[in-house]
């Protein structure tokens, strides 16, 4: 009788410890990842202006047909006022010609040809004050006179593909080819 009571007490105490331990692990781990994520997120806000930003900015080169490509941009809530894209033509000859045009009325597009690259600079016009926040927004259309493969490059020589926001942050995009 006495032994049974003892066993019951031991088992009961073990359950109690187990529940406390489980509860402790649960509560402790509940807090830890949150802190870690907040820390990561807050670090993005510490980056000074005019440097590459933390958050995800994506630029997609999408093939519409053999003669037409589009550049789509997602700016992750940043108000974009300028961008640069480096378009590489895999055909080194001059038999195919690339021309680009802005798909946004609020942006002017400037283009420079260097070797087999087309350097595009988009500039938000002064008379547009509405924020330009891109979300898979088609921003540039590229036309080809002959079907050749083209790529978007992050860097080439002195040139870099980037988006600039209204705080002068340089947003280096992740480039996706579709």
């Amino acid at each position: 009788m006495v032994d049974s009571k003892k066993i019951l007490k031991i088992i009961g105490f073990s359950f109690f410890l187990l529940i406390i331990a489980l509860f402790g692990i649960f509560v402790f781990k509940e807090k830890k990842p949150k802190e870690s994520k907040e820390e990561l997120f807050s670090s993005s806000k510490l980056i000074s202006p005019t440097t590459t930003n933390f958050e995800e900015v994506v630029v997609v080169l999408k093939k519409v047909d053999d003669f037409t490509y589009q550049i789509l941009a997602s700016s992750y809530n940043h108000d974009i006022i300028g961008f640069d894209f480096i378009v590489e033509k895999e055909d080194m000859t001059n038999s195919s010609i690339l021309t680009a045009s802005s798909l946004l009325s609020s942006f002017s597009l400037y283009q420079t040809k260097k070797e087999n690259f087309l350097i595009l600079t988009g500039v938000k016009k002064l008379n547009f004050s509405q924020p330009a926040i891109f979300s898979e927004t088609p921003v540039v259309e590229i036309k080809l006179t002959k079907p050749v493969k083209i790529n978007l490059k992050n860097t080439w020589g002195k040139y870099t593909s980037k988006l600039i926001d209204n705080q002068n942050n340089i947003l280096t995009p992740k480039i996706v080819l579709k």
Partner: protein
Amino acid sequence: MIKKFFTYKIVKIFSIGLIFLLSGIFFVYYLNQYLYRSKAGASSATFSFLPNNLSLKVGEVSAPISLLLQFQDGSGDEKIDYLKLVLNFPKDNLELADYIDTSTSGLSRQIRVDGPVAASGSGQIIIELGANSPGAGPATNTSPITVAKLKFRGKSAVNNSQITIGSVQIVNNASAAITTINRNAFSFSVVASCTRDTDCGNNASCQSQNNNNTCVCNSGYYNCDGNWQNGCESNRACTNPTNTHTPTPTITPTLTSTTIPTPTSYQGQPTNTPTSTQPPGGSVSLNLKLKFQGVMREPSNANQRTMKVRIKVAGGNLSSPVSVDADFTLTNNRNSDTDALIWEGSVNLPNQVIAGQNYYLLIKGPKHIQKKICDKDPSETTGGSYRCQGGRTITFSSGQNNLDFSKIYLLAGDLPVNGAQDGVVDSLDTSYIRNNLGNTDPTIVSIADLNLDGRVDTQDWSMVLYALSVKTDEE
């Protein structure tokens, strides 16, 4: 009967307890594996460099230096999702020479990787990488991970300095941070040598001495502080020389001797009288007239009436361009009533520039695109349209050479946004002006006020847009 009852009860309680225990163990395993992990799988991470030390000459670019990451107690199931680290280096002695290669890291998303301009301005490199999707990063049992490959250039002499690893964040695919980080520093030395004139700063040139290139002051200039970043800063002999090296003058036996002022050494003392023939280097001076786009009126701020301009000489006997910085002063002169004001300045060219040789000039203002000029009196019909073409050159005479470049415009647009120009007019330059329209803050004005009217305005905006048609420095 009573004993049986208790035996049954004990077995029942024990069974229930066992079920609870197994459920608890499963629950803890589930939490740990899929939701939260009490700690990262890997117990610690160690950063190191390969090689871990290096000696560079001033101006020399290192071979790629690998930044390695090795985990202790890693596993194939544990993947790295996010990595951020800060490298600190002495920016006075070293500069990042090229963009950082992170392609071997296994983390394909570049969140932030500082380039040469940002890094060399701050002495800090931030590398922030992520996996394309959770679990797509490298496993922690990979041995070791080459996070980045970096190239540095020696900037000024230093003995036994270090590149150190600052704050580090590593997060695995279970969102757990690996907090125990071991850091091995990179040791380096930079020896006072040079590979090009720009390594020696202003009023100095890089000369070959016994198979070793060293910096030598131009005639009439002295390096009194021992720092070649600011070149030969004094035009008076040094009272307390700080450097000990005394190179002998360059010998070029094919040329006849001419009487010229002797170059000075590191010590700021005149070098010994040469025993061999001396090239007529240092004897070429330029009196230049320049015209900068948009400066139609005298600036109200007196500081804006002088402008530092970089002049490079290339071609002729030079294997690479030599450069000199010079201050240009605004005059009241202009070629016509509707033309911009003319700036004047004089410069003594480095010793390597020899009278009688054929050269061309590359001229770059502090907010401007570099212009290549190969005519003594160039002109143009449209602003900024002059081009040096057809292999034309300028032949300098010994002594003073008057060059009037005031009939062509130096286009503005390459702003020193991060403290230095990048040789390109792009969206960073246009955006900087657009974001600061109407601004009169002296710091902003010094960067983005192109017409020097004391504020950033739409005229500056128009100028930078115009420069987009030229886009890059002429070479």
